[in-house]
C-alpha cells in the first residue's frame, strides 16, 4: 500500500499547484481518490467529519443496480434463445447478454466520463461521482439491440444538455439517464419502440417476435405471461427493467442505507396502484380505452419500467423534490401519471419515463409550496407582535 502511495505521489508531482500540468489536476485526483481516501484535513468549521462521502453514496447505488444488471444480462440471452425454441444453460444465456451489454456499458462510461473529466478540468473543480450511476443506468434502460453510436450520442446529449448546461452535478433539472433515454426515444423511435426491438436480434431473425407486454396490451392482444413471470422478470423489455424482484432487492439496499428515499419509492408504488385501481373500477364504462385499462392494477406495478423508474430514477436526489413532504407528493404523482400515460397513450406504452421527467420539472414547484408553508408559519408568529407594538 505504501509502495502504491509513493508511486502515485510521484505520478502526481507535475500536477501540483504551480507545476506544469496544474490544470489537469482534477483528472489525476479523480483516479487517486478512487484508490485512496485523501489525506485532506478540516480547515474550517467542524474539526471532525462523518465517514460518508459522495463516492460511497454513489457506489451504494451501483451496488443496488447489480442484481438487476446481472438478471438483465441473463434474461437478454434467455429471451433470445427460448424464442428460437432452444433452452439455453444459464451460462450460455448470460454470455449472450453480456456480449451485447458490456460494450454498451463501456461506451456509456467511456464517453460520459471523458466529458465529465473535460468539464471538471475546464471549470476547475474535482470530478463529481454522479456519473458512476448515470453511466450504468443509461445502458440498463435501453433496448438491447440499440447501436452503440446511438448510446454514445444519447450520453453526449444527456451530459451536455441535461447536466452541464445547467451548471453540472447538483444543478440539473432532469434526471440525466432519463434524458438520454428520452433523447434516443424521440430521435430514433424505430430503435426504441415497436415490437421488433425488445428481444436480442428480433429485427434480424424471423423466429423472434419481441413484443413487450405493454405493447401487446396497447394493441388489444392477449398476454401470454403470468403475474409471476412479470414479477421475476422473464419477459421481454429494456435490458434491466423487467425483473421487479431484482429491482426490489436493489430498493431494499437503497432504503436500508437511506441512500434512496423510501418516501419516494413507497409513494410512487402507491400512486401507481391508485391509478391502476381507478382504471380497473371505472374501466371502459367511463373511458374508451385499450386493453391496458382492464389490466389488473397489481400487474401494472410489475410490468414495464415502473419499478425500475421509481426505485432508481425517481429517487435521484438532485432532480427529485428535496423536502420530506415534497418527496411523498412527488413520488405519488410519478406513479399516478406513469400509469395514466401508459393507459391513455398507446403510442408511448411506457409512461413512466415521461412521468418522471414531467415531475422532475415540477419538483421545484412542489418544494416551493412545502417550504412556503414553513415561511408562512414564521410570518404568522410575527403578526401578533406587530399588533402589540402598534
Amino acid at each position: 500500500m505504501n509502495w502504491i502511495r509513493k508511486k502515485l505521489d510521484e505520478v502526481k508531482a507535475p500536477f501540483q499547484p504551480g507545476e506544469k500540468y496544474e490544470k489537469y489536476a482534477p483528472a489525476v485526483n479523480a483516479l487517486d481518490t478512487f484508490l485512496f481516501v485523501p489525506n485532506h484535513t478540516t480547515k474550517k468549521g467542524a474539526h471532525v467529519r462523518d465517514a460518508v462521502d459522495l463516492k460511497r453514496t454513489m457506489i451504494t447505488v451501483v451496488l443496488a443496480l447489480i442484481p438487476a444488471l446481472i438478471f438483465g444480462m441473463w434474461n437478454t440471452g434467455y429471451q433470445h434463445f427460448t424464442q428460437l425454441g432452444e433452452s439455453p444453460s444459464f451460462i450460455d444465456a448470460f454470455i449472450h447478454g453480456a456480449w451485447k451489454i458490456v460494450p454498451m456499458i463501456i461506451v456509456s462510461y467511456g464517453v460520459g466520463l471523458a466529458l465529465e473529466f473535460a468539464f471538471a478540468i475546464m471549470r476547475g473543480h474535482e470530478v463529481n461521482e454522479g456519473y458512476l450511476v448515470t453511466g450504468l443506468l443509461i445502458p440498463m434502460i435501453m433496448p438491447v439491440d440499440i447501436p452503440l453510436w446511438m448510446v454514445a450520442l444519447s450520453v453526449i446529449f444527456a451530459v451536455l444538455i441535461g447536466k452541464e448546461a445547467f451548471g453540472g452535478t447538483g444543478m440539473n433539472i432532469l434526471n440525466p439517464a432519463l434524458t438520454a433515454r428520452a433523447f434516443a426515444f424521440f430521435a430514433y423511435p424505430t430503435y426504441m419502440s415497436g415490437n421488433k426491438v425488445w428481444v436480442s436480434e428480433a429485427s434480424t431473425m424471423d423466429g423472434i417476435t419481441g413484443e413487450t407486454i405493454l405493447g401487446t396490451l396497447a394493441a388489444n392482444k392477449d398476454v401470454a405471461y403470468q403475474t409471476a413471470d412479470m414479477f421475476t422478470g422473464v419477459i421481454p423489455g429494456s435490458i434491466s427493467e423487467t425483473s421487479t424482484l431484482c429491482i426490489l432487492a436493489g430498493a431494499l439496499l437503497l432504503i436500508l442505507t437511506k441512500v434512496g428515499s423510501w418516501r419516494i419509492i413507497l409513494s410512487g408504488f402507491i400512486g401507481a396502484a391508485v391509478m391502476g385501481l381507478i382504471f380497473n373500477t371505472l374501466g371502459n364504462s367511463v373511458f374508451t380505452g385499450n386493453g391496458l385499462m382492464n389490466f389488473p392494477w397489481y400487474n401494472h406495478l410489475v410490468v414495464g419500467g415502473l419499478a425500475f423508474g421509481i426505485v432508481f430514477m425517481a429517487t435521484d436526489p438532485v432532480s427529485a423534490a428535496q423536502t420530506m413532504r415534497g418527496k411523498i407528493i412527488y413520488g405519488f404523482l410519478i406513479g399516478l401519471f406513469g400509469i395514466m400515460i401508459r393507459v391513455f397513450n398507446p403510442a408511448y406504452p411506457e409512461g413512466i419515463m415521461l412521468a418522471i421527467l414531467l415531475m422532475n420539472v415540477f419538483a421545484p414547484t412542489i418544494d416551493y409550496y412545502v417550504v412556503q408553508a414553513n415561511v408562512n408559519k414564521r410570518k404568522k408568529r410575527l403578526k401578533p407582535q406587530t399588533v402589540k407594538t402598534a
Partner: protein
Amino acid sequence: MSKNVKVKRGLKLSFKGEAEKILEEAPVSKNYAIKPPNFYSIVPKTTVKEGAKVLAGDELFYSKYSDQTRFVSPVSGIVKEIVRGAKRKILEIRIEADQEISYKDFGSLDPLSASEKEVKSKVFSSGLGVFLKQRPYDILANAEDSPKAIYVSAFNTAPIVGDLEFILKDKQAHFQTGINVLTRLTEGKVYLGVEANSNSYLKKLENAEIINISGPHPAGNVGTLIHETEPINQGERVWTVGAEDVAIIGELFSTGKYNAERTVAVTGESAKNRKYYKTLIGAEIQSFVGEVEENSRFISGDVLTGEKVEPDNFINFYDNELSIIPEGDNYRMFGWLPFKDNHVHSMSKTSLSWLFPNKKYSVNTNLNGEERALVVTGEMEEVMPLDIYPMELLKACMIGDIEKMENLGIYEVIPEDFALVDYVNTSKIEAQEIIRNGLDLMITEVG
C-alpha cells in the same frame, strides 16, 4: 416553573477521550492573553500601552462602535505585548501575571434591590458585558438593548466536552446571584437549560425558568432552547450567557471582584491527562495541558465548533474545553467503499457503525472525502431540531438573497446550530461558514 424539552432530531456523537471527573487546580500560568478576535466583529481600541501595570478588572480595550462594552484584564500584572497581525489588527494583548493577583474593587451590589439601571451599568462598566451575547447574529450584546429573554444552557450535548454541571457544582451561591443579575437585564424571562435527569441544585434555582433537556446533540444548544420556548422573530433581540460566566457575573456583584475563573476540561484522545483544570480566562495552554501525543490538533472549544489554536497559545475567551485530537493527514486505501472502514463513525447507514450505538469512536481531523456539489438531500434535516429547512437556508445564504434568508429563519440560527450539518453532510460543504457569511450580510444590510 419548569418546562420539558425533548429533542428528537439530532445526533449523539460518542468519541473517545472524555475528561475524567477530577478537578485540579492548574499551575499558575505566567502569561495570559485576551484575544480581540474571540469577540466577533468588534474593532478594538486599546486603552493601555505595553509596560502598563493593570489590576484584574482594569480595562484593556473597548470596541470602537460600542464603547459601553469594556474588555478587562483577567489578572493583575504588566501588559507585556500587544500582538498585531496584518493591517496592524490587534490579535492578542498579553499580560505577565503577578504571583498574587490583586483585584480592582467594583463594590458589591444586591441585584434584586438595586435599580435596573444600576445593575446594567455595573455589568457593562465592569467588563461583564462581554459575557452577554446577542442573537440574532451571534455578536456581543449592545448595552442599549433590552432583550426579549436571556438564555443560559448548563447542559452541553456536544461530543467530548466539559460537563457544565460538574464545572458548576461548587458555585451555587454565585450562580444564583448571577441569575438574579440577568433577570434585571431583561423584561422577559431568564431561561436555564438543565439536563432532564440531573438532580443538581441547578433545578432548584430561583428567578429562572428551568428547561429540562433530553435528547441528542444539539439539544443543549441555546439555539434549540430558544426555538422551543420563544423563537426569535425579525427585529427581536435575545441574549445568551455561558454557564460558568453566570457565576463570574454573580461573584462580581457579591464581592466586587472580577474573578475570571475558568474551568477547562482537557479532552480528546491525544491528550494524556484528561481532567478538569481550574484556571483563569486567557491562560496559557502549556500551563495545564500536560503531555500530548505528536501530530495532534489543539482545539479551543469543542470539536464541532471550536477554533484551532497553536499549542503555545492561549485558551479562547469563552471556552470550557480544550479538545486535542489526532490530525487525520493519512490516506485510507479504498476507504470510500460502503461498509468498509467501520471504525470511522458515520451517521449514514452505508457504514456499519450504526450497529454499535454505544461504541465510542476514535476520531481525527480527516475530511473523509472531498468537497462536492450538493447532491444528497434529507440528511441535514435529520440533525436539525429547529423548524427550519437547513439546505434551503444554506442555499439562500450562498446566493445572498436577504428576503429568502429572513423568510427561512436566519434570525433564529447562528453557526453552531449548523455544526452537525458540517459533520454529517456528504458533500463536505462548510455549513457553519456559510451561515456566518449570511449573518454578516444581514448585519451590513439589515443591521
